[in-house]
């Protein structure tokens, strides 16, 4: 076997790894690093921030984004099938059907878990909540007294 012809590719892979490692090491070595508390703070127009900048999004946003990615990507398996649907016949149809089932079951699960509800679903009636709040409040008061 001769490796000579394909050495460039191999060497390239090697170089790539070396490049990755070397740039990692070099950036650590070369970059001046004298961290001071001021330098580590996020830059905000020269004003010293007094609290962590607010970065909170509702969790729902992430969940739906993630779920969207997953379901969105699955479609790529349908394109090739759709192009050749007739040739593949019943077999392809059955396979795609089971694939769809595998997609729908999680969807049902997600819906049941309430992930797609934008607002938190109210699980208790208003009166129940009030009653629970009162009970807790009274218990705390008793504890304090004791």
């Amino acid at each position, binding site marked *: 076997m001769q490796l000579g012809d394909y050495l460039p590719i*191999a060497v390239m*892979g090697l170089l790539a790894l070396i490049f990755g*490692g070397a740039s990692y090491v070099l950036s650590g070595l070369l970059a001046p690093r004298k961290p001071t508390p001021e330098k580590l703070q996020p830059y905000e127009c020269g004003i010293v921030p007094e609290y962590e900048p607010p970065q909170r999004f509702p969790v729902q946003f992430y969940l739906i984004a993630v779920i969207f990615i997953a379901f969105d990507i699955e479609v790529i398996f349908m394109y090739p099938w759709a192009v050749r649907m007739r040739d593949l016949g019943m077999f392809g149809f059955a396979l795609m059907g089971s694939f769809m089932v595998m997609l729908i079951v999680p969807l049902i699960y997600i819906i049941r878990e309430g992930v797609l509800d934008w607002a938190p679903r109210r699980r208790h009636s208003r009166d129940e909540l009030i009653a629970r709040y009162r009970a807790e409040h009274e218990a705390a008061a008793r504890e304090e007294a004791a």
Partner: protein
Amino acid sequence: MQILDSAWLIPVIPLVSAGVLALAGRRLKEPIAGWVATVAVGASFVLSFGQLIALVGRPPEARTFVRTLYEWIPAGGFRVPVSYRIDPLSVVMILLITGVGALIHLYAIGYMKGDRDFTRFFFYLNLFVGSMLVLVLADNYLLLFVGWELVGACSYLLIGFWYQSSPNATAAKKAFVVNRVGDFGFVVGLMLIFSVVGSLDYGAVFSIAPSVMTAAMATAVCLCLLVGATGKSAQIPLYVWLPDAMAGPTPVSALIHAATMVTAGVYMIARSFVLWDLSPTAQGITVAIGIITALVAAVIAIGQFNIKKVLAYSTVSQLGYMIAGVGVGGAGYAAGIFHLLAHGFFKALLFLCAGSVIVGMHHEEDMRKMGGLRTKMPITFITYTIGFLALDGIFPFAGYFSKDGILAALFEHGTWWSQVAWALGLVGAFLTATYMARQWFMVFFGKPRWDEDVHPHESPWLMTVPLIVLAIPSTLFGTAGLPGFNQLHRWLEPVFGVAGGEPELLNATTFALLLTSLVVAGSGLVVGWAIWYRATADQRATLAGRLGGVVPFVRNKLYVDEAYAATFERPGYRLTAVLGDEMDQRGIDWLVMGTGAAFKRAGAWFSKGQNGLIRAYAAVMGAGALVFVVYVLARGVSR
């Protein structure tokens, strides 16, 4: 045939009994657990005796009976059957193990009275007996190794039986680690055998080995096996664990660390005599190790004050004789086994007597606080005296003939080194007589030096009966191997071949040798008497002063532990830069623990690389991949 077919029950009965005791736990109340265990071993003894009778009923050449129970590991062309071998050698071994074992079990019922882990003790003890029987009955090296490991584990568990006190746990661990070093050699030896012969069955190995093994290979194999034997049978350089092992209960010292387990190395060499015959070099080294051990341990024994430590060093020393005996080959094989059996009886007796003394003295083990016990403990005194005379090698007790058999074999081997060994052996015999006389006089004679609240008393019958029973073979067993009428040699002849035989008639040389040993032993006794009975304390002090630095040197066990510490342990520490906290606390007498420490430090050092950072982990993986790539490229380019 019937009885020989049932031989598999011999190890199984104690093992089943061990299982019962383990499952029952503390539900089985105190004396009952002990009796169950004792009866189990007793039953094995009866069966073993049946084997002996069955073998006697066969012609000598048909006295080897091998039976395969089932195939354990069938690995392609290589099979490991679970099979046992009843032949003259294994029969005498199982008789010793079950006989002495049963007596010691009985004794332990009395000795362990009131211990909160009474049942656990007998569980271990039964497990040990069963494992030891597996070891000697095995028909291949692998099964022998199974027993070998199991007895090691039991010994370890029993040394650390009273683990609440930390020296015991330390001693247990030391025993384990040292034995592990020996086992390593043993395993390598087995692999070498397998690689050359292609089998581990005794039959196959012994028939094929002479034709396929070169002398160099045989030497390598024997030396590896010898490393295993030095670990298990406490020989130089691995003997250091045995004296510390005395931390265990006294019945354990008697059974495991005197009569049976420690002789496994001797048995293994005798069993592999075919291999040793192939390699004169290995024989020489074996004899050298044995005889030097015998001498060194005897010297150390003189300086000890702990009653059990003296016996422990004495055991090391006697094991040295046995190793030298089986090492020299020829008549030495049978002589070594003869001494093994005789020693099994009288050393078990001595340990049990020591146990009886210790119990009588309210768990005092320092001989300086004893003295004058002969009137207080008459039975112990008489039986101890018998054991003492047997160990000294005084006519007509067992040790006289058995030790002399080894010395005679050394002398008659006829090479210069074997005769040097013979001379050293005589010196050892002299020292043996001296230190035993010292112990005898210090414990039983002179003025009482007891602590004030100690009131010595004779032990209960459960403990004295085994003493009396063991005193009988200690006295009479020598007749089995009378020079010239050596029944034991003749009995073992089918195993060791004609070479194992002895000149039939008592000729002048043999007689001279016998006389020499007797004179040497007697003079040792006289010296002991002169120093430790006749002389006053002042005279002893003067003598010690004249000897100068020798005395502390001997008392401190020749500083062997410290030397090991300096050579193995400290560099281990230095190598790894940081001193380990754990190792420090456990004292400095850790042979090989230096290596352990080195590994430990290495582990600690490497695990610093395990810094918890994902990016670092990824970098290490990448570096590993890079190494692979470079390797493949280098190979690819070079061809």
